[in-house]
């Protein structure tokens, strides 16, 4: 019989008893990476480890792992395979995180011990080797620090990103298409797969609404930071009087839950399926490639549509997958509302709230209202350079939750 243990970590240290907490307490100055100073590197790494542990809610993690291990060792666990799958996945994920964090600590102390040893022995080659290893660790852990931001249950999922033009006609539809373009570029720059699911073009320019599917590790975890209203201020190219306009585009992000998650059961009889095709008489009278489908889930009023695929069948299948994700998300929100722990993050996901301003005139700036993170080059942001905004929001919201 397999026995799952929680293997709680013993406090690690260097050979002379230096711990992560000890390094932080020493308040060593952290210099730029290029400064070859082991104390500076060690202090930076120790801080990262501390942050990662904090973001993982380290103190809660160990009892949670013990609870899961107990659950996993129950005889009747696999009587409910979907529950068992969830438990074992969660156990594996937590074990992985703990091991990774412990491995970083271990590595840090090894390098420090090595450097001290090299100095005692006057071995400059060993010293510079170990210093380089310490620097590599510093860079590596900085990335892991960002990944630790994405600890949410659905963060690893692919997602849909939807952009909808606000009021204001062509100018705001143009803005909506700029926002969509920004996400496409952002997703491409992260090497995520991007597929257009739905796109309703504006009469003159831009889009009324569009949905893309983004596939890749942690697509939802990152993109969820973009939910809300995005505001643009500029001289409108569509205004012959060259006046300044303010327009809005709202962004929604929906996780696409994999097979491992429980989905809301959707009954065919609860669906209203509408098909849009040019030409009243239909059938043999009409031959267009238009085969848009809109599906309404009557009990919840949730709708989804697709017109970008080449057959009605595919459009329906594609719209169904959007609908399933939206209904799942609605259920998740309902569950979250019941669960006080999530109320904080729920207030953050308010489609109406304005999260960011993009000002092109009279000055140039992009500013996030939630974090005050700002960039003075709007072009780079509109070209998809969003990671700064996303990561600052994610760390701010996590740290906020931690303080509660």
């Amino acid at each position, binding site marked *: 019989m397999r026995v799952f243990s929680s293997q709680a970590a013993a406090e690690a240290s260097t050979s002379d008893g230096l711990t992560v907490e000890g390094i932080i307490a020493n308040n060593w100055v952290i210099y730029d990476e290029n400064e070859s100073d082991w104390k500076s590197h060690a202090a930076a790494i120790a801080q990262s480890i501390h942050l990662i542990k904090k973001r993982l809610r380290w103190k809660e993690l160990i009892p949670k792992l013990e609870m899961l291990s107990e659950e996993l060792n129950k005889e009747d666990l696999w009587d409910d395979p979907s529950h068992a799958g969830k438990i074992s996945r969660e156990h594996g994920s937590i074990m992985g995180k703990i091991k990774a964090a412990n491995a970083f600590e271990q590595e840090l102390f090894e390098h420090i011990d090595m450097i001290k040893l090299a100095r005692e022995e006057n071995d400059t080659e060993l010293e510079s080797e170990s210093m380089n290893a310490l620097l590599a660790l510093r860079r590596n852990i900085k990335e892991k620090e960002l990944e630790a931001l994405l600890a949410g249950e659905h963060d690893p999922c692919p997602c849909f990103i939807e952009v909808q033009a606000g009021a204001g006609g062509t100018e705001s539809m143009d803005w909506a298409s700029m926002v969509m373009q920004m996400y496409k570029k952002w997703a491409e720059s992260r090497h995520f797969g991007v597929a257009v699911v739905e796109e309703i073009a504006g009469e003159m320019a831009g889009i009324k609404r569009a949905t893309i599917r983004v596939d890749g590790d942690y697509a939802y975890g990152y993109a969820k930071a973009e939910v809300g209203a995005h505001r643009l201020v500029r001289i409108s190219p569509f205004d012959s009087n060259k006046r300044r306009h303010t327009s809005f585009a709202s962004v929604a992000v929906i996780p696409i839950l994999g097979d491992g998650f429980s989905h809301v059961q959707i009954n065919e009889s609860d669906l209203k399926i509408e*098909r849009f095709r*040019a030409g009243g008489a*239909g*059938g*043999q*009278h*009409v031959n267009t*490639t238009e*085969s848009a489908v809109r599906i309404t889930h009557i009990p919840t009023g949730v709708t989804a549509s697709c017109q970008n695929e080449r057959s*009605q069948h595919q459009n329906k299948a594609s719209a169904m997958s959007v609908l399933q994700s939206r209904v799942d998300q609605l259920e998740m929100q309902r569950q979250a509302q019941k669960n006080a722990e999530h109320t904080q993050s729920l207030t953050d996901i308010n489609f109406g709230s304005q999260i960011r301003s993009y000002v092109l005139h009279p000055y140039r700036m992009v500013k996030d209202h939630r974090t005050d993170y700002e960039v003075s080059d709007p072009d780079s942001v509109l070209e998809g350079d969003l990671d700064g905004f996303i990561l600052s929001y994610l760390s701010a919201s996590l740290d906020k939750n931690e303080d509660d």
Partner: protein
Amino acid sequence: MMKSSSFTRATLSLSSILSLRPKPGRVAFCSAAKPKPQTPLYLRPPEFRATLSDLRKWHIWAKTEACNFSAVDGGAESSLLRRELRWLVEDAVEQPGLVWEEMNEEGGREVAMRACLEELYEMWKERIEERRPFQYVVGCEHWRDLILSVEEGVLIPRPETEVIVDLVDAAVKADEELRDGYWADLGTGSGALAIAVARVLGGGGGGGGRVAAVDLSPIAVAVASYNVERYNLQERICVRLGSWFDPLEDLRGELSGLVSNPPYIPSDDIDGLQAEVSRHEPRLALDGGPNGMDDLIHLCNGAASMLKPRAFFAFETNGEMQSKFLVDYMDTKMKGSFCRLNIISDFAGIQRFVTGYRSA
């Protein structure tokens, strides 16, 4: 266009065709007269090269043509044409994903294509200026989960007709005996219904029934056979050349199911249809006689003797008037032959389909 060709129903129906009728169960068209079906663009070998910048030039030209176009007959409109343009690139270019990414970048990198640029210019001109249906331009139609080869002389399958397959699926689930029988798709065209129905019949595990796909047009027979082979269903579908039930004499009273999307448009209406349909699609597949009912009535009459007891049928019609007329005709003129008659609407709410069963 089809009027002037030699294939009209009257001249072909009984004379030459009957003598060519092969033994049942064989793929069944005359090899001497076999037209060679065209290969859809997306299946052609990528043996052409073009630089990205030349492709971009073509794309900008084509997009401008699309944006400036509007048809008064409800056919092509510019947002649709722009979408079609995207699909054309997807079919014509070997690695469309890469090309989309780099389309806006500078550089003279070459890409592999399935048609040369000149042909792409020609294709898009035909699409816009001559209103040639997009599906004929690229040589295929995406229908349900199938990609079917189509060309001039073969009706492009419509999305409405996809519903018939769902109706068949429901019928065989309600009566599993139907699954193993012999079915017929009359006026098969590209073979769409026959292929989709064969896949439904085979879907329940085990063997599954067979389908006879019949068409009067040798081009349709050739294209349908090509599509059947592409989906590797030669063992399950036999394609037969001939008029309606004529090539199915060996199956009289044996059919477990019958589906058909026969011509149902009244003759006088055809010239008024959008250019893609009236100028390019085969009249043979559209023209249902003075009131559009000629072939539907013929199918009803034949079904009474061709179907076995409790067999299922589904016909597509022009809409409410024809569907009601057909049900009334079967209820009164053919009293006792059919039961459980039903009119079913398409997604647009038009009463499009008539279904029912041969009485026990």
